[in-house]
């Protein structure tokens, strides 16, 4: 479980996050939704400490994360897998080297054990026969899957995904959503996904937090979201004609 309590984040004079509190449950896909520029990515990066928060508290189970020293943060981060918006695969490494990277740094596995584990993770995300390719040689969807394989290589307890299906076609997006959901349930991971894709919300949203202009505006699940009378949420969810038509069915 991850909990954020009254967190705020400013860049200079600009307050990007204001007094956000939320609990992200274990074994569930927790979604943070909101339009572009609403502060979703800043919130996610603050949760993992890539941004220092201005105020508030971040808890991983019983450990307060934001006050930990560098060494303890580093230790805790080994339990966190993160999928970045642009995949963030290392250009200098092949597919299998990318997945083996955290194993090489943080485990005492020998080379054959690392290869075995990396292959297992790659097979889990349905990447076959691409071990020796470089990230620039594979498609965007494959890059996301390799990034997921890298994120789960160390058996993380927490998985954070920043817009995992941005730039992907609807079918591949759905595959990625399914994969993340399956991994979450299978390994009982606390998963947080940033998205503005309503398909993802309806497919994977066990819990949904709606961020609007840097504040938490609404919280619920994928069923409740369709019946909410929150105006800003309604404007966000039913922005397309298709969504409005479906609501009226």
């Amino acid at each position: 479980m991850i909990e954020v309590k009254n967190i705020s984040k400013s860049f200079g004079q600009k307050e990007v996050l204001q007094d956000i509190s939320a609990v992200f449950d274990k074994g569930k896909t927790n979604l943070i939704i909101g339009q572009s520029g609403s502060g979703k990515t800043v919130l996610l990066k603050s949760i993992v400490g890539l941004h220092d928060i201005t105020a508030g508290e971040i808890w991983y189970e019983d450990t307060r994360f934001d006050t930990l020293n560098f060494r303890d943060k580093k230790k805790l981060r080994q339990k966190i897998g993160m999928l970045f918006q642009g995949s963030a695969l290392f250009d200098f490494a092949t597919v299998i080297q990318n997945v083996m990277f955290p194993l090489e740094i943080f485990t005492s596995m020998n080379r054959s054990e690392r290869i075995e584990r990396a292959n297992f993770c790659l097979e889990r995300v349905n990447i076959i026969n691409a071990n020796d390719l470089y990230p620039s040689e594979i498609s965007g969807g494959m890059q996301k899957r390799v990034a997921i394989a890298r994120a789960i290589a160390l058996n993380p307890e927490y998985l954070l995904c920043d817009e995992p299906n941005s730039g992907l076609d609807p079918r591949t997006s759905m595959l990625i959503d399914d994969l993340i959901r399956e991994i979450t349930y299978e390994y009982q991971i606390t998963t947080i996904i940033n998205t503005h894709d309503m398909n993802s919300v309806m497919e994977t949203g066990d819990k949904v937090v709606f961020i609007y202009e840097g504040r938490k505006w609404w919280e619920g699940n994928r069923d409740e979201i369709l019946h909410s009378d929150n105006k800003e949420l309604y404007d966000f969810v039913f922005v397309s004609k298709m969504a409005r038509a479906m609501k009226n069915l």
Partner: protein
Amino acid sequence: MAGRYFLLMRKVFVLPDKPRIFFKQIWVEMEKLGLSSISIVTVISFFMGTVITIQTALNFVNPLLPKFYIGLVARDSILLEFSSTVIALILAGKIGSNIASEIGSMRITEQIDAMEMMGVNSANYLILPKVVAAVIFNPLLTVLSMFIGILGGAFIVSVTQIIMFADFIQGIQIYFIPFYVTYGVVKMMVFSVIITTIPAFYGYYARGGSLDVGRSGTLSIVTSCVFILLFNLILTQLMLT
């Protein structure tokens, strides 16, 4: 700016988590930054050696001065200044742009964030092997440049007969001070730290898109060159006077 640079260096100069990976990275960087520079250093040193010799010969108009002095002056110009400072300025452009663009593009594509996320000290992992590789390999390039530069001088003398070849050979042997080689090597070691850490600093803190990475690269080269010249003065004052 200086504060941020030194804060970054504090992250860079710590013991690596996994020495085995660190040493592997040093080899990779030596190949990328050092071996790949051999050809450019060779070509430039050869031609500069020829030009330095011709210009020195043309300026020796006094008939009372022995001709072997042309070889001596050409040799000392190469040893003292060309093979360390000028080669460092050239490497600042070649290696510097490589480092700034590599680290800068890793920054803007969140690869550095991904490393930090995994608990890896990205500054140490990415920058320290480059610094160590350059400090070890670039002095070898300096020595190579000294040799090739003098060889270039010998070549042009033998081809143009601007002076007697024997005079030139006598000139490059006479009054040889071995400390000049040490001085050139020490200078290059210091310059190597400059031409790796400054571009790494600009790349590491790059923001925005590819244009900003390009801008960081340009700024890093200009800054590196200024600092090379500044430290050239300081080291010359410290070591030769």
